[in-house]
């Protein structure tokens, strides 16, 4: 990485923008980075990051004062393990520059930024979730979408938790983005950001009945097309499905 000289160069022109990658969060993460320097992920997001510098300089401003300290040279890989393990099982606030940047950019749209069991997550408002994901992918180098899934809470007004598990090769860091959506409300698709979202969202649709707006191919994926109901909803009755199927297809009473 050219971490040593880059900040000096950029200072004159655009003081406010911290180089939106590597060290900052690596300081918190105790793990090593094993992505080879030649690998694509390292160079991929650079242009996007540069573009963002001009596009949204204000957003990054508040993070600047904190920026100088960890801009140390060399690989963040060799950071000594400083395990900041959370003591109790309660989530603790996740304080980092990434979060500071987010708070400045989206304000109250970021409802929560916490660490639980050493794992960081953001809870964001559903209206900005796509913006947040796009920003994480393009500017913060979370270029690998590990998983997209949902959790059903039938008693809540907004019944579903959408969970996006993201990983950054450059930072060797994971973050989960969560948002709450109501039943029947279409969620914009993330397949424009990561093509891998295609099947993951199809599965979420198949299992929870969450519709994804703009999805290129929203069909059931694991269950047959004619299936009724969405199995991973809490109110899905396995027994009723089973007896119903037996009756309809075999014409007898189910032995269940």
């Amino acid at each position: 990485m050219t971490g040593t000289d880059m900040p000096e160069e950029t200072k004159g022109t655009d003081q406010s923008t911290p180089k939106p990658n590597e060290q900052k969060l690596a300081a918190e993460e105790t793990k090593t980075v094993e992505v080879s320097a030649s690998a694509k992920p390292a160079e991929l997001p650079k242009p996007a990051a540069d573009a963002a510098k001009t596009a949204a300089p204000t957003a990054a401003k508040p993070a600047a004062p904190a920026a100088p300290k960890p801009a140390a040279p060399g690989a963040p890989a060799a950071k000594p393990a400083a395990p900041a393990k959370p003591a109790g099982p309660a989530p603790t606030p996740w304080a980092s520059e990434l979060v500071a940047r987010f708070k400045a950019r989206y304000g109250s749209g970021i409802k929560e930024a916490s660490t639980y069991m050493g794992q960081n997550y953001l809870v964001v408002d559903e209206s900005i979730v796509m913006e947040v994901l796009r920003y994480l992918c393009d500017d913060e180098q979370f270029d690998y979408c590990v998983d997209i899934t949902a959790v059903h809470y039938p008693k809540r007004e907004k019944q579903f938790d959408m969970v996006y598990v993201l990983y950054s090769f450059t930072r060797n860091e994971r973050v989960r983005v969560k948002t709450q959506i109501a039943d029947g409300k279409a969620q914009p698709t993330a397949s424009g950001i990561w093509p891998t979202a295609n099947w993951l969202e199809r599965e979420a649709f198949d299992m929870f009945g969450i519709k994804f707006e703009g999805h290129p191919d929203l069909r059931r994926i694991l269950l047959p097309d004619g299936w009724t109901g969405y199995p991973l909803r809490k109110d899905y009755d396995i027994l009723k499905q089973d007896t119903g199927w037996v009756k309809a297809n075999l014409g007898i009473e189910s032995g269940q």
Partner: protein
Amino acid sequence: MSNSSFYETDVQRQDGTFLDANELVLNMGPQHPSTHGVLRVVLKLDGEKVLGLDCVIGYLHRGVEKIAEHRTYAQFAPYVDRMDYVAAVSNGLGYCLAVEKLIGVQAPPRAEYIRVIITELQRIASHDVWLGTHVLDVGAITPLFYTFRDREEILKIFEKYCGARLTTHAFRIGGCQYETYEGFEKDVKKFCDFVEPKIDEYEELLTGNRIWIDRTKNVGVLKGKDCIELGVTGPVLRAAGVKWDLRKAQPYSGYEKFDFEIPVGTNGDTYDRYLVRIAEMRQSVKILRQAIEGIPEGPIMAKVPKVLKPPVGEVYVSIEAPKGELGYFIVSDGSTRPYRVRVRPPSFVNLQALDKMCRGALVADVVAVIGTLDIVLGEVDR
């Protein structure tokens, strides 16, 4: 066979027209032997050239994630073995680590070593199955017998260790159920000495083999950028030149104590993926030797309450399974049963890349590409 220029004359015809006089829809599977289980692939062909394909999956869907919500944490553990049944131990390890994270317990060092040994043996076994069947698909029968002969030795060790060969349920939440048997270390050492020349044997059969090279070089190319976009992990990602392995990137179960390399390829084609997996088998042997040397004495179970009631919260824990990143996202509501278990299966995500890898290739290459992706349908469908 195919060559690179063939790939460049690719797919001009993705204009939405599906069936004209030249296009043919071919149904491959779900009972085609080369689809490794019950994968159905609907191919759109122009002559023998693949214009695109659609995977039809779900034939093995058992609703594992739903079952989890109706079982206690300990009761669910054997179910995960049934997902990727050729690498059952890895599934179990991932699940145990996830629940341990949730309850804030760490397995004792000896248990970690046993876990590493069993898991690395399983990695070799899994790669053996992959190699045998993959090579069989593209036309060579001999390696199948070689690899299954060697896998048998591993299964024997498993059987002696925990009584089961395939769906072992070898680990428990908090450590291991079983202490190693008398002569375990000797058996593993013997196996290491046994298997290394055998890996050379596979290489002698294949690495310089003209037919093998013709069938695999520049077939099913997937570059690093595409891998990352598609979320593809494991040997497929490494063969594309991305040096990333969770055992190194975010070590778990004591992998940071072992000295091993991450083999990478350059072209991201089927041949490179073969080389990467072969090299991985050698690295696994290397880890095995170190683990056997360094295995400490001590307890094999951490203190885990009889009735597991993890505090309210959620965790995502993933491991480097033989096929890629295997993750568990578990939500606890404080009761004895998980509120939600989500499995992030490497095979499922990797299979999504099949379409991209096969466009412009020949039907025979589809067979090779399915083989090289190393999918297990039990894990794809869950």
